[in-house]
């Protein structure tokens, strides 16, 4: 299903849609309160954008530098051209781990948040191959129990109410029926997941930033699930998209100051963990993934999207995301940023996403790395149209309108007819859902007697 169809489904429950809208707007407001006290915040955004510009323009050399330094640190570095190769590499690392190789019985893995592994569909692949995968971020655990994808990259279960979570936990964790207190539900998850952390053979994490000069990587969480998992398991696998690189440790300061403030309005995440060398007797692996990123690097109009640090600020501020929900995008990364990343992956499947925007530009205004998101949305629309992926109604509607706008006489007559028609015709006809989708949830204003053009020619001073 395409975005408008899925959005319509979500928006059917009016009260829930309103609640979703308000909840995300509240996060946007928290973001504003967190950035206003920082006088240099706008300067930091510019710096972050420039650091990413530089890194992308020298990415091959930084990748090599990162690999060399990571290897010196005793970390094994792997390269995956696409999602399938990424999944295979992860499975190989698991099967060849010294404490697992040749062992029978279940293999247990704990995972902290990684949008990349969602993008590669790692979980179902590992489960099919006999690995028990437990997502340990609370929001991700909730959606994993429900067999749903995350609906937001920072708040994976933001589409659910506490009653929904209560039901899910009652079913999977045996919490009392009707328990919906977030404190009690979180405590139940804590107890359940502590056991999973202790039992795990392998811990997998994402990567927020990778530092070329030291071969280190940084993982940010509020719950502490990345560090708990990694430090209790024998093997740590970190999966990163190649665009996560930054040149030096000093650049971390810019990004750490921006990330949590933009994401949730916190001054910093509770844990900002820097991994450089594995603990003695343990293994650390890094999987560097392309999966369409080099292609995006080559598209000068859309290259900027690779600067994204996955804060989710563009989702929280987007009037379309807030009222259509993350699942309506049907892509790993929803919202405005997802709508400019997805067409690079599959233009046909995601052809409606660049239109899931009012082009108000709020996404670009809040982006901590100054991606010109709304400009790219507009540019993707041109590509969608050129590739003949527009729905017929839109395509011929646009063509017809373009013709009419080019002929002043026809345009003037059309305006006249429409103004009288709106006055004369019954409401049921002017607002017929099939004919006028614009008026589905909106009232049209009263039609004026004359057009502005007519009024102007009568009133202009000689």
């Amino acid at each position, binding site marked *: 299903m395409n975005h408008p169809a899925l959005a319509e489904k979500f928006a059917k429950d009016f009260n829930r849609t309103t609640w979703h809208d308000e909840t995300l707007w509240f996060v946007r407001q928290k973001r504003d309160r967190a950035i206003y006290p920082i006088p240099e915040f706008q300067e930091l955004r510019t710096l972050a954008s420039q650091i990413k510009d530089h890194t992308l323009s020298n990415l091959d050399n930084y990748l090599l530098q990162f690999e060399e330094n990571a290897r010196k640190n005793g970390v094994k570095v792997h390269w995956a051209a696409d999602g399938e190769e990424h999944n295979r590499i992860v499975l190989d690392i698991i099967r060849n781990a010294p404490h697992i190789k040749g062992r029978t019985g279940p293999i247990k893995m704990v995972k902290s948040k990684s949008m990349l592994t969602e993008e590669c569909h790692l979980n179902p692949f590992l489960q099919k191959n006999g690995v028990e995968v437990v997502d340990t971020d609370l929001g991700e655990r909730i959606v994993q129990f429900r067999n749903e994808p995350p609906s937001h990259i920072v708040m994976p279960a933001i589409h659910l109410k506490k009653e929904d979570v209560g039901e899910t936990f009652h079913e999977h964790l045996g919490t009392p029926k009707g328990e919906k207190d977030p404190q009690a539900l979180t405590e139940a998850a804590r107890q359940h997941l502590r056991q999973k952390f202790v039992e795990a053979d392998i811990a997998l994490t994402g990567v927020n930033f990778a530092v070329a000069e030291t071969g280190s990587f940084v993982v940010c969480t509020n719950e502490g699930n990345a560090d*708990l998992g990694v430090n209790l398991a024998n093997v740590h696998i970190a999966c990163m998209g190649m665009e996560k690189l930054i040149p030096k440790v000093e650049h971390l300061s810019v990004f750490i100051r921006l990330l949590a403030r933009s994401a949730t309005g916190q001054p910093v995440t509770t844990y900002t963990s820097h991994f450089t060398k594995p603990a003695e007797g343990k293994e650390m692996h890094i999987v560097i993934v392309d999966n369409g990123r080099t292609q995006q690097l080559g598209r000068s109009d859309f290259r900027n999207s690779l600067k994204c640090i996955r804060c989710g600020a563009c989702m929280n501020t987007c009037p379309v995301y807030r009222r259509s929900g993350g699942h309506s995008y049907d892509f790993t990364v929803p919202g405005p940023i997802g709508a400019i990343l997805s067409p690079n992956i599959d233009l046909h499947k995601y052809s409606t996403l660049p239109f899931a925007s009012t082009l108000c530009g709020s996404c670009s205004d809040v982006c901590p790395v100054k991606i010109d998101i709304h400009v790219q949305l507009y540019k993707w629309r041109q590509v969608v149209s050129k590739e003949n992926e527009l729905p017929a109604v839109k395509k011929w509607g646009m063509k017809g309108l373009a013709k009419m706008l080019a002929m002043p006489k026809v345009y003037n007559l059309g305006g006249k007819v429409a103004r009288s028609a709106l006055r004369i015709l019954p409401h049921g006809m002017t607002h017929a859902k099939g004919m006028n989708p614009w008026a589905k949830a909106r009232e049209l204003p009263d039609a004026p007697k004359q057009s502005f053009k007519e009024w102007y020619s009568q009133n202009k001073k000689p």
Partner: protein
Amino acid sequence: MSSREKILASVKAHKPALIDLPVIPAFEGDGSIEKFKTVLTGIGGHAIEVSSKTECQQVIDTHYSDLKNLASTLVKATVEIDTSTSKDILEQVDLAVVEGVVGVAENGAIWVPEANMINRALPFITQHLVLVLDKTNIVANMHEAYKKLDTIGNYGAFIAGPSKTADIEQSLVIGAHGARSMMVILY
């Protein structure tokens, strides 16, 4: 050609012409103890000032007398922890008291390097966490913090307050997977 070579060749072919790396100016800010304490309180932590490091024991005795398994190299420990301690012992730790090396006033974070953690898992698996910090090591912002650290070492973390989540309806809950409470003793 391996994926590594393929990816590197593709990056080389697709990247734009070299763009300069900007210089990060010296950003200044309020690096006061007061600011640090205010921000830390705002994120669910709590700070106590003492006049010398030796008073830590007294603070722990006063505030945490009800906790049984205490791991530390700074105050009297009741459970021995080292780098090879097993998971089932780590799991029983009620309180860990370890030393941080740099505090950041703008966000309440404290850098804890691996060497001070005793065991890499300890600051995360403990039920409650106390970080001890020399108050002259508080800096204004992250730029100054990284400058003050000679190295980020093998492993280390900025820890800012107790473990938390807002994943259920955006309601803030303290004590997700990590420490349920976090206190900082400033000496």
